[in-house]
């Protein structure tokens, strides 16, 4: 028990250190790499909480592909953050402190972490755990919940990912016309650039 708590404290402290480092570093390459490490540490935390599926996703998406996409973006925007020389922003600081204080105050009212009679343990979770062997018969209950009980939600998630693709392609993708022109140019190289 003490060991688990030590690991928790260690990982959470690591998260705090990384967040502060990300805030203070002006080199964007370094902060992206730190973001990747942040995701990896979060994945370890999820694993400590026995949420293997979430940890898996966090490691693959957060530490893996998101870092790569950010790095690819970096090649377009340059790697130094612009220095903001305007006056200190006091109002945002006050708002952040008040909101943070309210959130910490709210934690006091939360039920004890991991207690058996928490609402999260007594709501739909028992039904999923007890009934899914009969209703769905899939050993991984997470998959049963994700794909069957919450099939609508997951359909929505897939649509969100698809929408993100559509948005990116509309904003910075090559248009179909451009691809056609490239194909034309490849077919007859002597006409290259003739359309521009």
């Amino acid at each position: 028990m003490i060991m688990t708590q030590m690991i928790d404290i260690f990982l959470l402290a690591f998260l705090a250190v990384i967040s502060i480092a990300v805030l203070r570093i002006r080199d964007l390459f370094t902060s992206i790499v730190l973001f990747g490490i942040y995701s990896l540490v979060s994945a370890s935390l999820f694993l400590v909480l026995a949420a293997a599926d979430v940890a898996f996703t966090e490691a693959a998406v957060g530490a893996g592909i998101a870092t790569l996409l950010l790095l690819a973006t970096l090649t377009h925007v340059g790697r130094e953050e612009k220095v903001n020389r305007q006056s200190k922003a006091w109002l945002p600081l006050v708002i952040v402190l008040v909101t943070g204080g309210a959130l910490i105050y709210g934690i006091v009212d939360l039920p004890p972490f991991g207690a058996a009679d928490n609402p999260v343990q007594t709501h739909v979770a028992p039904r999923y755990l007890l009934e899914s062997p009969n209703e769905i018969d899939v050993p991984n209950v997470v998959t049963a919940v994700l794909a069957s009980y919450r099939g609508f939600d997951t359909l929505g998630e897939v649509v969100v990912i698809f929408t993100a693709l559509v948005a990116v392609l509309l904003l910075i993708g090559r248009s179909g016309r451009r691809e056609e022109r490239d194909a034309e140019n490849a077919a007859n190289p002597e006409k290259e650039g003739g359309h521009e």
Partner: protein
Amino acid sequence: MNEQLISRIVGKFLVPYILLFGLYVQFHGDYGPGGGFQAGVIFASAFVIYTLLFGVEKAMEIAPPVILKLVAAAGVLLYALVGVATLLDGGNYLDYDVLGEYPVAGQHIGIILVELGVGLTVTSVMMLLFFTFSQKDDEEEEGGSR
């Protein structure tokens, strides 16, 4: 990135195993951690490694963006059509019970198909996003706007 012999050879060794692991995560999601989302990202990361080592043009020859766009849409469509199929079989939308001979078999068929749809969409979306982000530079160079 033309002379990186060691990374190229190591990468070449890695790519097939990453693809295989992606397929394992996709189709073993019923039994262990994983599923369409994770499998899609892992599968796409194999192509990302390939792109980093051999350039975006070569990667796009293997996985043409036109086809990837179709696959991305087909994944969402597959998911939604499973719902339509359950409607036609007399159930509620995405109620897989009616798909098989008995409810549990229907659930298994439904989950496999739906996860496949998720995997297809996530794989092709991730690859297209990476291609789009890595590609933009040469367009800017051609236009001479920088």
